[in-house]
């Protein structure tokens, strides 16, 4: 699971109102090499929930010097875009789980795949 995906995921346990962002508990993280496309990254940024990305980066110990808030004029800031690119597309959680911040329910991540299936009573 890449952090771009994590940014979209939310807890959908019945009754939960504050299920986003999911907490990441990773036991295995992999680094990939993905071709850097500045335009792509720059288009993605407005669609992201920035604070969730920062929180996720923190949880994985990958934050480095990522700012807590979006810098202005990031479109031209290649340095910044590279950092975002790395976090969004190159960091990958292979094993671990995602935890609902409200209910504590854990969704396993195995072989890079989060299993978000709820049981009958949770849905």
């Amino acid at each position, binding site marked *: *699971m*890449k952090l*771009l*995906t994590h940014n*979209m*995921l*939310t*807890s*959908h346990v019945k009754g939960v109102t504050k299920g*986003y962002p999911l907490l990441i508990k990773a036991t295995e993280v992999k680094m990939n090499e*993905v*071709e850097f*496309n500045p*335009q*792509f990254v720059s*288009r*993605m940024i407005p*669609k992201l929930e920035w604070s969730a990305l920062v929180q996720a980066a923190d949880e994985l110990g990958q934050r480095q010097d990522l700012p807590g808030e979006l810098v202005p004029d990031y479109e031209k800031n290649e340095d910044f875009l590279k950092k975002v690119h790395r976090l969004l*597309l190159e960091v990958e959680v292979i094993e671990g789980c995602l935890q609902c911040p409200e209910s504590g329910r854990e*969704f396993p991540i195995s*072989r*890079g*795949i*989060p*299993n*978000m*299936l*709820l049981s*009958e009573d949770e*849905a």
Partner: protein
Amino acid sequence: MDPSVENNVRAVRRSKEEKKVLKRQIKASHTLLKHEGISTTSQPTKSLVVANGGLGNGVSREELSAVLKEMGELETLIMHPHKPYAFVTYRSEECARKAHVHLNGEKLQCGGNSVTLYLSFVDSVTCEEEASVPLPEGLVLVEDFVSPEEEAQLLAAIDWSSANDDITAQKALKHRRVKHYGFEFRYDNNNVDKDKPLPAGIPQECLPALELCVRNKHINIMPDQLTVNQYESGQGIPPHVDTHSAFEDTIMSLSLGAQTVMEFRHPDGRLVPVVLPGRSLLVMKGESRYLWTHGITPRKFDTVPACDPQSPALTPPDVRTHSNLTLSKRGTRTSLTFRKIRHEPCRCAFPSACDSQGAPSTSPPSPPSLPRCHDDAAQLEEEYVHRVYDAIASHFSSTRHSPWPQVCHFLSSLPPGSVLADVGCGNGKYLGVSTEVGCDRSSALIQICAERGFQAFVSDALSVPLRSATCDACISIAVIHHFSTQERRLAAVRELVRLLKPGGRALIYVWAFEQEYNKQRSKYLKEQNKEHPENHSPINKASEDSHRPVDNIQDVSKVTDGKLSVHTNRTSFNTQDLLVPWHLKEGKRQGEEESGEGVKKEKRKEKSKKSSGNSCSADSSSSSTRSDCNPDPCPGFDSNMTPGSVQETSDATHSPDSKPSPSDDSAHNTTSAPKSESSPVPVFHRYYHVFQQGELELLCGQVAGVKVQSSYHDQGNWCVILEKDSIEMN
């Protein structure tokens, strides 16, 4: 004239017709040698092999012997079951020679077919006299148990009219008719509601026969449950053991009307066919009741012993030896099965088949029903969608490689950087285009996505763990037709709409009931031409129309009693809710091609799988044909199909190389595969609700805040593009 000269003259004058017959007779004898090991001789003998004069090709003993007797007196006539030939031995060589001369090329009309007989001399006739197979232990057959008058009285005593709506449904689906007295036997759990006796007990008219059973010591206690089964020709009942915990030991079945053949099977594989004449009583006790299964193969003709009163030497005792058999056409048979309800757990000596002693209850052979509530629906989908996809994932994925042009068109029309969700992404066929994430219910398929480098997760389409209004676009390709109630299909659409941002668009594809549209047959149907014609066997009465496209909504049969039938692949649909077979093969690597009849070998372009950039290439309309035998309800994929040949309530057992299956009385199953006799290809059934024209639009119309932007038919699918209102309505 000197006979030899006469012969020569005759030889010269041999007509073209005679030459043809001679040629064919020689060919027939070659075939017999090659395939059956029968060697013929040119020297006349008393014995002949009659090619095409066999039980195996629908010729009855009576018809054949009538023709043969015209040439002289018969010593023996041997007809092995299922063989397309017979052996006849005449009393004299002269008669045999006469037969050879006059009957070669003789045409016989046998019940609808016309066969041509070819005779050749044989040196000896091997008569496979098998040792007579004994009846299963505990089984007793008493012939002439009731008189014809008593039979008529009993038949009249059964009141079919009050039997409930099931009867109409049974008729519609060509099931045998069933009625219960005393206690109702339930087919969903193969047991009896012991606390709910039926208002009607065993009819008075049955008492004399039952009292006779007691007097003759077949039973000690009077039965209190009666099940009446009425079988038309072609109907049967799958093999089963009567539930131990439901009934006491002795079970008696009185056969009225036409005779039939009931097959008993032992767990070790032994098969014993037993002829049940009309007015006979079958008593099952002990091993024959507790351990052997019994069943009636749905057939129109049975192979039974011949009774030739004029030549007793020709008639053997029973059907268990292989000589002197003939075909008997089935008529309507009514069986009255008398049983005593068991109130204590069963303590029989056959625990392996005993549900009281830990053996699993036989899962009912009846097909699943259309669900009436969410729980049933979820259960049906679990069994007939989710488990199947998990089992077939790699094979399935190997057959889903060509993206459909129209879907690609939708994807490429999205502005760059659009956030896309593919709900029900399967093997990730449409992932890798832009910023997208896929989800699917099948972990096995999502695993394949991960292997291909796509971002995907496992979830249900009814509850997608993405925040509302976060997607620029969603696609749902060939997904919603797997939901088994209208409510769930609606909920799936609502979920897609929830994910969309205002102004966002969703593309939905579902399998269409109408496979032919604007006079164009879909690719799914077109592949049918490549099939072997003998593979189509009727499922229910509507299947006679199976090759005629349904253009009239009135033609659509509703699933009356809720039972789902199995579809014959590559034919038009005749109900909206059905099970579609999938014949499992080892998953093949993409790009691997197979040779086979009608397979077009075309190269397929490998898609680039970058996470950015559009990999939906323009030429993705490649139509490679593989000999994978499963249909993609979508364009862009063609395959050679091996349709299932199926009975109403039992499952397909046939091999992928298109041989028609012989007697289809396989054990029941659901998703786990019954194995065919010739080769073990598992068959899985997936549930589908195929949509009628306009139905998808109507469904989407019920969702607030969204409009149908366009709607079209694409290669056997109904498709809509929805657009979410720009101003979010809550």
